[in-house]
């Protein structure tokens, strides 16, 4: 079993569009959407949810008005500025450390477990799919990513699947690290812009830091051939295989609007290039 993650550093370079096509191209695999705070892959895979689970993680402080003597000891110890002057908790600032409840002389503060989101196991016409929805303004996205990856891996092992294909989040922080850890390889999708190059270099450093081998794809490469060449020069220098160059094509947005994957919707050089990328990636 091989685990492959699609990442980018910069958002909006085409991770989900490419992941959707990989879902249509790869046989005997499970798909995972690890961009849990802005998940979009379901819009292409049209899942039928089979299992729905609450994701409990983290805790939030709650002050009991009746027990609170307003002594004020909790306010200075909170490093997150989550206790307001009127002795109520600002939910979005509380990081659930519990220090306030531990030091309150009147035992007026208790910690409540958060339901930080939901995760799903679904059927799609492309095979099984594990995805999630982080609660609005919740934290612990890294833990939710780790959870759905573990579930996907268990299903892959039980069903003897060949691939776990992971649509990753943008950035380089906690959910990206959780999406990367333990995969067999990462596919970086970037675009020929200074931001795309800058961010791809950073996310590549993260992959290197965790000893993950990377491949790269330049999406919309013909929007700026000069910068596309700079990206490829960087890859040559660093020994990163460039698996493909996908041209800018308005039909990609058409496919998206119809809720279809690119390789199924259009027969054009773009679809051929994506097929070619998968052929290289799987070998």
């Amino acid at each position, binding site marked *: 079993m091989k685990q492959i993650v699609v990442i980018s*550093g*910069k*958002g*909006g*370079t085409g991770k*989900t569009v490419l992941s959707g096509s990989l879902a249509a191209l790869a046989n005997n695999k499970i798909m995972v959407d690890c961009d849990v*705070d*802005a998940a*979009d892959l379901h*819009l292409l895979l049209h899942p039928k949810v089979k299992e729905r689970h609450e994701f409990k993680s983290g*805790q939030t402080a709650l002050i009991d008005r009746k027990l609170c003597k307003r002594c004020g000891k909790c306010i200075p*110890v909170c*490093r*997150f500025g989550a206790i307001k002057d009127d002795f109520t908790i600002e939910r*979005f*600032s509380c*990081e*659930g*450390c*519990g*220090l306030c409840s*531990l*030091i309150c002389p009147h035992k007026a503060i208790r910690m409540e477990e958060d339901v930080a989101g939901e995760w799903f196991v679904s059927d799609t016409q492309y095979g099984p799919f594990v995805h999630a929805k*982080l609660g*609005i*303004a*919740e*934290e612990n*996205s*890294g833990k939710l990513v780790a959870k759905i990856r573990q579930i996907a891996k268990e299903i892959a092992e039980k069903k003897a699947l060949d691939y776990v294909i992971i649509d990753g*989040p*943008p*950035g*380089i*922080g*906690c*959910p*990206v*690290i959780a999406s990367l850890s333990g995969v067999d390889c990462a596919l970086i999708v970037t*675009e*020929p*812009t*200074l*931001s*795309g190059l*800058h*961010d791809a270099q*950073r996310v590549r*450093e*993260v992959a290197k*830091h*965790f000893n993950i081998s990377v491949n790269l794809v330049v999406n919309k490469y013909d*929007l*700026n051939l000069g*910068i596309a060449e700079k990206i490829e020069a960087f890859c040559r220098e660093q020994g990163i295989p460039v698996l493909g160059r996908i041209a800018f094509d*308005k039909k990609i*947005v058409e496919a*998206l*609007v119809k*809720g279809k994957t690119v390789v199924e919707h259009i027969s054009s050089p773009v679809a051929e290039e994506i097929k070619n990328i998968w052929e290289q990636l799987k070998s």
Partner: protein
Amino acid sequence: MIISIASGKGGTGKTTVAVNLALSLKNIQLLDCDVEEPNAHLFIQPRIKEELKAYIPVPEVNEAKCNYCGKCREVCAYHAIAVLPGNECKKGNVLIFPHLCHGCGACSLLCPQSAIKEVNKEIGVIEIGEKDNIQFVHGCLNIGEAMSPPLIRQVKKYINPTRTVIIDAPPGTSCPVITAVKGSDFCVLVTEPTPFGLNDLILAVEVLRKLQIPFGVFINRSDIGDGKVDNYCGEENIPILMKIPFSREIAVSYSEGVPIVKKDSLYQDKFINMYINICTIINEANSRH
């Protein structure tokens, strides 16, 4: 006044809006709070005058004082401490996992032996600079570092209240975004008219409603995709602040780090109008309260 620029989906044009708005107005401070992937500097090219390391406090155990009682492990909500008690033949051990630590200070405050002190762990850098009349601050998270909110909070400490502050936020809907937009007077949500753009816009709208920050929508590449973002904004009574159609010329100028207002001065008027529109919305919201 603080205006933050956010979006659920990445790559919709947050930095484009933040940079062009900053260049169109006077007396601006621009804060790039997308510390995982900061890009605004590529467009502004500020002269960096100060570079400061950013730290979070993590515990360090004084082995001479520690009796391996395990209190620190018990109070750490993040499982960042493990304690191995000793026996006759072996000394105990305290293991600290700094990448899990949120720096809450519970272990050091509650250690019965006062054996824990906090030491600084570097998580990134903050750079401060300027370009023409724009004050510029950004944070850059170190590679391999998981938690961006502490760095975002530190960048926001440099907010200059005498200026109009523009915050370029990270994508998504979770803690880094909340930390970046919290305390803003207004938030511009940048989206594109595709199913992905709409899906993530709806999530971002829920976040701002929870945080009770007034907001409006900026539709980038407005002539691609479909009309569903427009319809959604209409149904939900969300003001559409501005639209930019897709043009290869704009895409190319973005790719080279050239802000559109520098190419086409008509856009400067559009961004000024958007700013006036935002001020009107804020004033109306304030007068209702």
